């Protein structure tokens, strides 16, 4: 039909200037519609990106103009023992969150996919915590974890077990944070895996079974390879998300006890809003960006290929 529409105008011999004028008018309209988006992207996305890089090499105090300080901000960071602790803590959080938040939702999704009843209920329920505001989750679990009157220790005491220290000991604090964050976020991963599992053609299982493959071999040779893409995407997304953990430690531990739950983002917040040292905070952002940017690039390449 589109050729049918264009043909008459070509046959009538529309002059090139008229076509040019139409093209210009279309471009003007298009950029008119785009201008609001261009302005907000320029002001609140592109400009801050450039500014963030520049700030990393500047000293900012809001009284005098920013001065160039070369790599001083980075040197200050590398000399700060909290900087290294923050990275170790963040990697620990990410690692633990992957053990739980990556493997558990997949196992659950595989299990749910086999159930013939109540699937709608399970799907609904596993996603409920995702819908809670993170502040609600953090404050609720802070109360659960409370070593005095908290629910968990009350429950343990009532069956005669000693209470645990949860957030109050450097050895268990991080694990406790991982537990909350997994509880709150696993719903999305579970449902995404479930959707991926449902795209697997039944014939593949059929064929594997005919070849004598038992349950575990079918899982290993059919289910996992067939969901490889979803697994890889979620792995990257989870890496990027968990390395930016902030709300749980900010509300539940404030980075303590000691410095055991200070994460990179918590340290960044401290540099910027406690010390008002925006230059060093930007340098830390830049480092975080470089680390996460690698994962981000992998993600984009991966989804491009799938398209």
């Amino acid at each position: 039909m589109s050729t049918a529409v264009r043909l008459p105008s070509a046959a009538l011999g529309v002059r090139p200037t008229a076509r040019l004028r139409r093209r210009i008018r279309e471009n003007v309209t298009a950029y008119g519609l785009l201008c609001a988006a261009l302005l907000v992207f320029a002001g609140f996305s592109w400009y801050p990106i450039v500014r963030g890089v520049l700030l990393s090499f500047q000293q900012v105090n809001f009284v005098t103009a920013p001065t160039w300080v070369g790599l001083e901000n980075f040197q200050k960071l590398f000399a700060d023992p909290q900087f290294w602790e923050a990275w170790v803590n963040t990697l620990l959080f990410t690692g633990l969150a992957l053990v739980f938040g990556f493997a558990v939702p997949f196992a659950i999704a595989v299990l749910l996919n086999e159930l013939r009843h109540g699937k709608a209920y399970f799907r609904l329920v596993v996603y409920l915590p995702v819908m809670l505001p993170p502040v609600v989750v953090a404050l609720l679990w802070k109360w659960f974890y409370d070593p005095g009157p908290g629910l968990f220790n009350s429950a343990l005491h009532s069956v005669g077990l000693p209470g645990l220290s949860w957030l109050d000991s450097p050895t268990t604090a991080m694990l406790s944070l991982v537990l909350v964050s997994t509880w709150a976020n696993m719903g999305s991963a579970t449902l995404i895996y479930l959707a991926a599992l449902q795209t697997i053609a039944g014939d593949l299982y059929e064929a594997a079974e005919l070849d004598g493959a038992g349950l575990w071999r079918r899982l290993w040779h059919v289910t996992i390879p067939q969901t490889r893409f979803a697994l890889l995407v979620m792995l990257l997304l989870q890496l990027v998300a968990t390395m930016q953990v902030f709300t749980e430690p900010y509300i539940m531990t404030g980075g303590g006890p000691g410095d055991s739950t200070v994460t990179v983002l918590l340290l960044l917040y401290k540099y910027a809003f406690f010390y008002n040292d925006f230059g060093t905070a930007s340098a830390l952002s830049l480092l975080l960006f470089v680390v996460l940017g690698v994962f981000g690039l992998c993600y984009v390449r991966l989804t491009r290929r799938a398209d």
Partner: protein
Amino acid sequence: MRTLVSESQLRGRRGKAVYWAVFVVVAVTFTAAFVFPLIWMVLGAMKTAPELARVPPTLLPQHANVGAYVEAWNFMSLAHFFLNTIIVVLGAWLVQLAVDVPAAYALSKLKPKLGNVVLGMMLGTLMLPASALLVPTYLTITDVPLLGVNLVNSPLAIWLPGAANAFNIYLLKRFFDQIPGELIEASTLDGAGPLKTMWRVVLPLSRPVLGVVSILSVVTAWKDFIWPLLVFSDPQAQTLSVALQRFAPDTPVNLLLAGLVLASVPTIVVFLIFQRNILAGLTAGSVKG
């Protein structure tokens, strides 16, 4: 549909027994892990502080004090913070639609010169972790370039950066791309300009994607914490999440629990109503890329 375990395996006596055993375990575990904490929160708000600390813990409150919800509402002036949050959330939603829909339409259907460059630069921002931009975006908010205004404590500090949402533009453009060009040309032949065509032809067809974008933006804005924490330094301007966190240390635990329940009601209600759209949007947006 055939899955990992075949129907015939489940039909046998042993298969049936194993299936129902697994089913019961899953049902109980799921309810205990995901529903129970929420029920406990709702019931806990109606208990007294000493009852909340009791060993063994009680499930049902001994004297259900429903008034705790009213008390919490007044104690933390929740009406004020609900209103703040509603203004922030609805504004963020409207601004996102007003900015991102025309942009996606222009990029998809009008295809201006350098449109692909613009799209690429927008999508490029998706690769950046939001937290890496916190500091420079915050500094931009305190002194907006060219205008020289300070947006701290203004809802604009949420609305404007929120509108620079490349994921929205991506979702919308991908949907607009599927609308046949014939419909647009027919509308143009009828003498409608691009704006009228967008309003009359494209938007009515785009209800599903507008729904997904709307729910996404409302829920995200309601749940947001770190950015409102930074830009609302004035306690009176804060959103619910930020205010709850500020009140938490000085609030009796039953009232705090009541506050948490009240703050969760909107997103849970939205979820129960728009369940299908939310879950569909979740899987559409991520895996099928």
